[in-house]
């Protein structure tokens, strides 16, 4: 068994979901996503035993494209993130009913398929194909099942699509350029290229555009908040939980490895930009009136920090970035689910229309509180491990980076607590807040359990990622 | 200056001026007649080249067939009135400018190019008799020759198609 099983399973799942009909769709999708999680856990086991689970097959002769799927610790972790979050996301959506559910869940699984592929591919074009493929389902999910005014939604979603596509097309040019030097797209062969500084710069820039838009870094983030707001929550979760990580993962896997010299030269500016994003996102989140938008900007701040970690090019920075990716993936999914839970009951995302929920639903409040605390990286949650490692690595580069990056500790607490206060606390709300269902509790508890467990005992993840990152660093410092 | 040269110049003058008058005259019928003259003068050129067959064919096809078609159409549309509206002045001016530029450019290029000096080949062999043309046409050029029939067939079907009245119910 190798990693293709995951992909095939997801693809088959998508097709099966489509043909299972609207009523069964969610269950079939859930079944397949759980099965995929099982398979990927099994593969993790194989992987940790040292078995090879990579796959290398021929695909195209011209252009020379291999079906090269390789799982090192990093990829494996990202795949697990995807396959773990997908069932959670699907499970969380069981409380909603969607028109044309079969297409909806098929698209969700298909997106999961594409994202998994992105994390596994080590052939440039294959990777690019997966990368783009992931965009199409989310486009439709946001477009068709999104909320809010249709015209505005369209505008936001189309902007998102074109914008991200625009970025990635430049990446394609970079790949084309590399291709005509190596005559294939294998990552390994790209390493062996002796690219001049100028070449590296331009290739780095092309990749950067793609990733900066996807991650997003300021000032390329303008698509984010609106799409998060307009997309259905499942879409938002997929976007924020996994898809953003595609960009960050790619930075580590492709950008800094192919053009390390450029990365080193540009490092201060990149970190500076990322940290500016942290501060900008945090500040703008302070006064958001829409819950999902606020979470979107908090996401912007967090990914900024992760990106800063990636661009430090140090072991700690990369490790921390990966930890933080995982942590952020879980916590943001949880938070968006919280927004959804409230929306199910209050039919609103306006923060001002909420408040006073705590006295009605203490359980929900506690779970939400823990997520908020995880989001502000309270020690004991996995987010802290990530944030600490990243900030530490930043401090090793330049202490000021850590100081400014560290403002997220303060500002993050500020806007998250403010949000929590306005959403949950205060005089009991006149609107009845129906008590939280078991499904909802299960979803949140799984997420929280994950975050707390690895917050105290991050060693398994560390052991998985560390060797992979060390390999990557060897390439960077070649 | 030999007679032939004089004939050439005369013919050339006729060709160019009638061509110009074709365009310039306001009455379409006049245009058509100028065009016929133009075609005849071109036939004269062919004769100068000693391409008699071509000259005959030219006269038959152009002056005989095509021009008749034109005239017929003009008559059909009753266009002999001088209701011709000229294009706006700017357009006409533009046309003149473009004409001048284009001819100037092309002629400049040809003048600047390597002039052909020396004798022209005269092999003395027959290369343009009817016999020779026929042989070439039906041997080497058999395929295009046949293919040209497809062309004419298409044109024929097309003309029919465009003019045929449809039966509205089948």
């Amino acid at each position: 068994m190798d990693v293709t099983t995951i992909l095939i399973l997801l693809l088959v799942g998508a097709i099966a979901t489509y043909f299972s009909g609207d009523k069964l769709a969610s269950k079939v999708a859930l079944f397949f996503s759980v099965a995929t999680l099982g398979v990927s856990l099994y593969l993790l086991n194989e992987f940790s035993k040292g078995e090879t689970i990579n796959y290398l097959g021929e695909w195209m002769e011209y252009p020379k494209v291999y079906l090269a799927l390789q799982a090192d610790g990093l990829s494996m972790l990202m795949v697990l993130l995807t396959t773990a979050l997908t069932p959670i996301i699907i499970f969380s959506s069981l409380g909603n009913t969607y028109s044309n559910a079969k297409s909806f869940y098929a698209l969700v699984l298909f997106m999961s398929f594409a994202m998994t592929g992105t994390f596994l591919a080590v052939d440039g074009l294959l990777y690019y194909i997966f990368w783009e493929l992931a965009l199409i389902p989310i486009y439709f999910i946001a477009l068709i099942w999104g909320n809010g005014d249709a015209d505005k939604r369209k505008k936001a979603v189309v902007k998102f699509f074109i914008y991200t596509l625009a970025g990635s097309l430049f990446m394609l040019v970079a790949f084309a350029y590399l291709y005509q030097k190596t005559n294939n797209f294998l990552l390994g062969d790209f390493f062996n290229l002796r690219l001049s500084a100028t070449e590296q710069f331009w290739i780095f820039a092309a990749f950067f555009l793609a990733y900066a838009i996807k991650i997003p870094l300021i000032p390329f983030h303008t698509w984010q908040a609106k799409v998060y707001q307009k997309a259905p929550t499942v879409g938002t979760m997929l976007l924020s939980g996994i898809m953003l990580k595609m960009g960050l993962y790619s930075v580590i896997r492709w950008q800094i490895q192919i053009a390390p010299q450029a990365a080193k030269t540009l490092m201060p500016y990149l970190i500076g930009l990322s940290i500016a994003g942290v501060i900008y996102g945090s500040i703008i989140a302070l006064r958001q009136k829409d819950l999902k938008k606020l979470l979107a900007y908090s996401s912007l701040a967090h990914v900024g920090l992760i990106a800063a970690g990636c661009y430090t090019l140090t072991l700690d920075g990369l490790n921390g970035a990966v930890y933080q990716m995982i942590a952020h993936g879980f916590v943001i999914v949880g938070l968006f689910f919280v927004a959804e839970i409230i929306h199910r009951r209050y039919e609103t995302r306006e923060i001002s229309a909420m408040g006073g929920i705590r006295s009605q639903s203490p359980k929900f409040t506690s779970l939400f509180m823990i997520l908020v605390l995880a989001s502000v990286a309270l020690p004991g949650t996995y987010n802290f491990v990530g944030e600490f490692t990243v900030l530490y690595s930043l401090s090793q580069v330049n202490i000021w980076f850590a100081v400014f990056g560290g403002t997220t500790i303060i500002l993050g607490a500020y806007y998250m607590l403010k949000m929590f206060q306005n959403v949950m606390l205060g005089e009991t709300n006149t609107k009845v807040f129906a008590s939280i269902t078991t499904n909802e509790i299960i979803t949140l508890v799984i997420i929280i359990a994950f975050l707390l467990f690895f917050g105290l005992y991050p060693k398994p993840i560390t052991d998985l990622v560390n060797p992979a990152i060390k390999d990557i660093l060897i390439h960077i410092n070649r | 200056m030999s007679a032939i040269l004089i004939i050439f110049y005369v013919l050339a003058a006729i060709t160019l001026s009638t061509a110009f008058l074709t365009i310039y005259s306001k009455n379409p019928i006049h245009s058509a007649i100028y065009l016929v003259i133009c075609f005849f003068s071109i036939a004269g050129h062919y004769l100068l080249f000693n391409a008699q067959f071509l000259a005959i064919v030219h006269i038959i096809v152009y002056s005989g067939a095509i021009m008749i078609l034109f005239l017929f159409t003009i008559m059909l549309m009753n266009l002999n009135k001088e209701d011709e509206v000229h294009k706006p002045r700017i357009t006409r001016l533009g046309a003149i400018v473009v004409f001048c530029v284009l001819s100037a450019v092309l002629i400049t290029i040809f003048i600047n190019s390597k002039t052909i000096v020396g004798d022209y080949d005269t092999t003395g062999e027959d290369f343009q008799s009817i016999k020779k043309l026929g042989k070439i046409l039906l041997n080497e050029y058999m395929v295009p020759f046949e293919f040209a029939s497809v062309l004419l067939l298409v044109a024929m079907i097309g003309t029919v198609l465009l003019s045929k009245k449809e039966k509205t119910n089948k």
Partner: protein
Amino acid sequence: MQTLIAISALGVFCLLAEIFNLRKALVPVTIVGLLAILGITLNLWSIDSSIDEQYKSMIVFDKFSAGFSSLFIILTIFLIALSHDVYKDHQTKISDFITIKVFLLAGAVAMVSFSNLSMFFIGIEILSIALYILAASKRLDLKSNEAGMKYFLMGSFASGIILFGICLIYGATGYFDVAEIYALSQGAGLPIWFPIGITLMIIGMLFKIAAVPFHFWAPDVYEGSPAITTALMSTLAKVVAMATLYKLLSGLTVGLTYNFEIIIVIVSIASMTVGNIMALRQKNVKRMLAFSGISHAGFMLMALLSLTNAASTLLYYTSAYALAGMASFAVIIYVTKNKDNEDIINFNGLGKTNPLLAAVLTASLLSMAGIPIFSGFFAKFMLFTQTIKAEYLVVVIAGVINSIISVGYYFKLILAMYTKEATEEKQATPFVYYAVGVISIVLNIIIGLYPSLVTNLIN
């Protein structure tokens, strides 16, 4: 040669069919006939000794021509399959239409397999005249007349220029035979007539593929023509012209001069940009696709920058483009069948009323936009790679920017299908639209997944 003869014979058969009142059987028989011809063509290609000595001086049926001919035949099959439903109210004319299309195919095949400029010239004239007729074929519709007239006037003007070009080439070399001209062009000492002749011919072909600044006819003609003719023009005719242009350039000259490449670069960038930008604000789908076609012409022109080895890429690109175009036109013809215009509004709610056709149209538009797994993506990618190799990065950048712009208008249509409410009830859909749409998009995806199916045909 056999292909050409067979196609012509099929055309004659179609003519005769009407006489013998075989109208009902006409379309199926023609399709079967074309399939057989496709078989012959592929067979010829596989044995590779297909160079028919007897007609060598006129027709060379090599891999290039076999590859493109096969593509043309496939496209014609689709078009003729669609004809059945489109012309069902014009039973008296159906055989004429089909005959013209078959002959048009003959012209097209001649254009990619000529070895003598006379064949090229007659081929292009058959193609053009057939198109003039088809464009104007709705004789009572002023728009169609206008389209035919515009196309005819400009087309014959372009023919004059091509003819002038041929004449100058002949004057410079004394031959119409491509091989001889190629041999002579390698040596020095040709008069300046030769490059001018080549240039004029290329300009004529640029007109046919609707490259800027010779593109103005395209949107008007596409819009005015009957939808099925537009489909023909935007898929078959454009592909034929492009293949011919490539064949002319690679067949007649050793390599382009630097200055000429600059011209190609400028025309290519201009075509992409103008086509895409103009397409943004179009309401009429046919017109939009016309501009999209202009931009694709710009993309295809990139292939001329690496003249020696771009044949397979060009075939791939044209196949991808034409198949996507065919799929989209199958849907467009269906949607606008009983409408008096082709505005985007007509597509509202198609995603709900007819999900399959909506999916087909979406896929074809995505392919044209260059989204992966659809062959349009690989096509663009191959072109980019080759152009980068030829060191014209600037064209690639322009191409990328234009790809981005193009998404803007392709998605306008997709948005209309999926987010707007339908204006009318679902109508019965003849099977043929599904067949054509689905088959062509599936072919598109298949060659997307296995590009070597196409690229190996020539290389």
